[in-house]
């Protein structure tokens, strides 16, 4: 952090000399410990009698472009064009002046006072003014010395052309490129890629390469250990699918995955890696901006493995609301949420998420002593730049600290990004025309005990919020059995079996011939201690699918609870017959037989 502050100071000082065009500068410049080259450049300008000094590419502009822009704006980088050579920069001089003045570039939305975060390189007002002067002066190149050096920017490169984290241990690519249509403002497509590992591995890093930086704008990445995502992808004959990432696709063990241009998550230390199981799928949602002609899109993902199991595991906290309901035209709709941590934690990173109507995004921590620390402040939220903000030094927060968020939305016509014109009521939902408001906070507890405490304390909060989201989705799609089933499972987790039963009953009504639907309903009824009804549902499931081993098993358990031992044993025998290799089935049968022998009235 300090290093770049010094660098800025030096640049500004040198730049000021060029303006004043004063001779004593030559004597002073080396005293700052700057490369001698700055002094030499100055000498050339004066010797050639260029008159009143204006900023020039070689001396003033190039060092800035290399330091702040070239990470993305280099040949093969993630930006749509390079800014490395004079010829490149000159062709964008006015554009550079405009987009730095309006703070569109460099794309850093957080208040510069927050953090410090990894990769935070804001331009100072003086630097932006200099770029404007340079463009207005006709984008002069500067001295001949630099031209002789091949017109390359003088400072050493801060990027590499290939993988930023080095050669990956495993590279995953799309088997077939996706063709992005010519037209549209924002396009989304979800790709599901099996991760071919023969054994479980410990992942220290994931690097995403967009493949076609002209159109790929950001990537939302999750992993799915269930076949849910894969099935959605397989149902669409073209590469990937349109729609939503299923809830079974998650961040692994509390780690962020994802990519925005210019950001590469650093490799994790071995003790903080995450465990990748066999048969896991990578779920990659690409946000793309069509270019005006059909484009081939073929991103690749590199994985980096460590040798040892992690000893620390982060927890991904999520503040936010899923009952968002913004009236049409409301320019100042606010949501708030908070959570008090029951253990000491270190905040590693934060990532705000919202769609097009959010404009003011804030997160902060209030310590037990009442003092406050900013987590993130974004005064002009832009959906297109959803960075993960990683603290250079993790923020230590004691037990009892309250994490809070406050997001404000503009659903009026004055918000140019509003996806609905004229504005319409906007409710919570994952589609980009709907609205969201989450603040993800990655924290690392001190040890395994605290991890467990925190996870168990936090889980009901997030499950309750997810329930609100599902209920809102179900209002929109009342016939979607998947939604009813998912929310029913959440209700079971929250100990509200009655609500779970109601949703599974709806699923049964929608799909009366589904053995699974009856089985699920039976399970919820069992949890709700409505055993006779539960047995009825299991029997219905078995009437439809007599070989449904889990239904036999659960029916056996109900019968056991009703002390109908012979009937229970019959069911467990059937499970063993259907699953002769299952140790659990044999164990259940043995337990039932043992219970029958001990029955009190015999």
């Amino acid at each position, binding site marked *: 952090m300090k290093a770049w502050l010094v660098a800025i100071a030096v640049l500004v000082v040198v730049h000021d000399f060029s303006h004043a065009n004063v001779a004593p500068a030559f004597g002073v410049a080396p005293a700052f410990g700057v490369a001698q080259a700055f002094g030499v450049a100055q000498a050339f300008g004066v010797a050639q009698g260029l008159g009143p000094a204006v900023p020039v590419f070689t001396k003033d502009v190039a060092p800035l472009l290399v330091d702040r822009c070239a990470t993305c704006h280099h040949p093969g980088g993630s930006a749509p064009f390079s800014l490395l050579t004079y010829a490149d920069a000159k062709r964008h001089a006015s*554009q550079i002046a405009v987009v730095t003045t309006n703070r*569109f570039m460099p794309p850093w939305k957080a208040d510069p006072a927050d953090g410090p975060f990894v990769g935070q390189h804001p331009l100072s007002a003086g630097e932006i003014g200099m770029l404007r002067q340079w463009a207005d002066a*006709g984008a002069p190149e500067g001295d001949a010395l630099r031209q002789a050096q091949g017109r390359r920017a003088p400072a050493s490169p801060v990027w590499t052309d290939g993988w930023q984290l080095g050669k990956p241990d495993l590279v995953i690519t799309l088997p077939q490129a996706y063709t992005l249509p010519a*037209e549209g403002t924002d396009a989304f497509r979800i790709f599901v890629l099996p991760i071919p590992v023969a054994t479980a591995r410990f992942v220290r890093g994931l690097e995403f390469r967009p493949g076609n930086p002209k159109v790929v704008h950001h990537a939302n990445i999750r992993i799915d250990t269930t076949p849910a995502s894969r099935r959605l992808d397989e149902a669409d004959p073209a590469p990937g699918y349109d729609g939503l990432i299923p809830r079974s696709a998650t961040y692994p063990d509390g780690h962020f995955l994802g990519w925005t241009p210019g950001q590469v998550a650093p490799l994790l230390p071995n003790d903080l890696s995450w465990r990748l199981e066999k048969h896991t799928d990578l779920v990659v949602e690409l946000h793309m901006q069509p270019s005006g002609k059909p484009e081939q899109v073929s991103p690749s993902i590199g994985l980096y493995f460590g040798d040892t199991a992690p000893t620390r595991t982060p927890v991904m906290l999520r503040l936010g609301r899923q009952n968002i309901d913004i009236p049409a035209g409301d320019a100042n709709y606010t949501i708030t949420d908070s959570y008090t941590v029951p253990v000491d934690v270190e905040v590693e990173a934060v990532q705000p998420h919202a769609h097009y109507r959010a404009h003011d995004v804030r997160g902060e921590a209030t310590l037990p002593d009442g003092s406050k620390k900013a987590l993130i402040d974004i005064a002009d939220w832009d959906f297109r730049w959803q960075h993960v903000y990683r603290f250079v030094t993790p923020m230590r927060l004691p037990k009892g600290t309250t994490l809070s968020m406050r997001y404000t939305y503009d659903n009026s016509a004055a918000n140019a990004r509003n996806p609905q014109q004229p504005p319409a009521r906007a409710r919570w939902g994952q589609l980009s025309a709907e609205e969201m408001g989450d603040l993800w906070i990655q924290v690392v507890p001190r040890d395994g005990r605290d991890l467990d405490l925190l996870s168990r304390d936090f889980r009901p909060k997030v499950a309750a919020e997810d329930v609100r989201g599902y209920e809102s989705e179900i209002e929109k799609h009342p016939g979607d059995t998947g939604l009813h089933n998912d929310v029913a499972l959440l209700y079971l987790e929250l100990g509200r079996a009655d609500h779970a039963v109601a949703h599974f009953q709806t699923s049964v009504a929608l799909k009366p011939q589904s053995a699974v639907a009856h089985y699920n309903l039976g399970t919820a009824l069992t949890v709700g201690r409505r055993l006779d009804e539960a047995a009825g549902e299991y029997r219905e499931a078995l009437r439809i699918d007599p070989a449904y081993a889990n239904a036999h098993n659960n029916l056996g358990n109900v019968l056991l609870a009703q002390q109908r031992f012979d009937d229970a044993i019959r069911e467990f025998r059937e499970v063993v017959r259907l699953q002769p290799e299952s140790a659990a089935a044999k164990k259940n049968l043995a337990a039932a037989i043992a219970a029958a022998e001990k029955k009190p009235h015999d």
Partner: protein
Amino acid sequence: MYHRSVIFLPLLAILVQALSGAPVDALQAPAGAKAIVFLFTSTECPISNRYAPEVHRIAKSFASKGVVFRLVYPSPSEDAAAIREHMAAFSYAGSADAVRDPKSALVKFVGATVTPEAAIFANGRIVYRGRIDDRFVDLGRERPAPTERDLFDALTAVVAGTPVPHATTQAVGCFISDLVR
């Protein structure tokens, strides 16, 4: 400013280059044409390129009404081969023809500052100059869909013989001053 001078000097020719390299008068319309739409563009400007499907749509809507579309490439470094390649990539054949304006003769005549920027030449003068629509509010700020289709509305007025609603609008895109450096 310039289009006023046209009223006084109606015979003024604005010399640009055909892709063959031959000098041509940009204002010379094919027989029967009611209006020429100049569309200032560049092979590299992403904003111009993203408008290609909309340009095709507008060109198609007015093709039978005596409106011709002419792409204007002001960058001296974009040669005929690069332009032909660009037109093929974005399927401009059939929608528009193209001229080079390496000396910015037409840029100055129209007062164009960015790509994409449109100008309509009809009845011996420029009757509209500005954006295609209001999708781009600023560099980095974009509407999901336009709320004003200025070029379309101006052409509708020209074809109907009624006044153009807004004779000039502010276009957002890549600066021509950068392209001609």
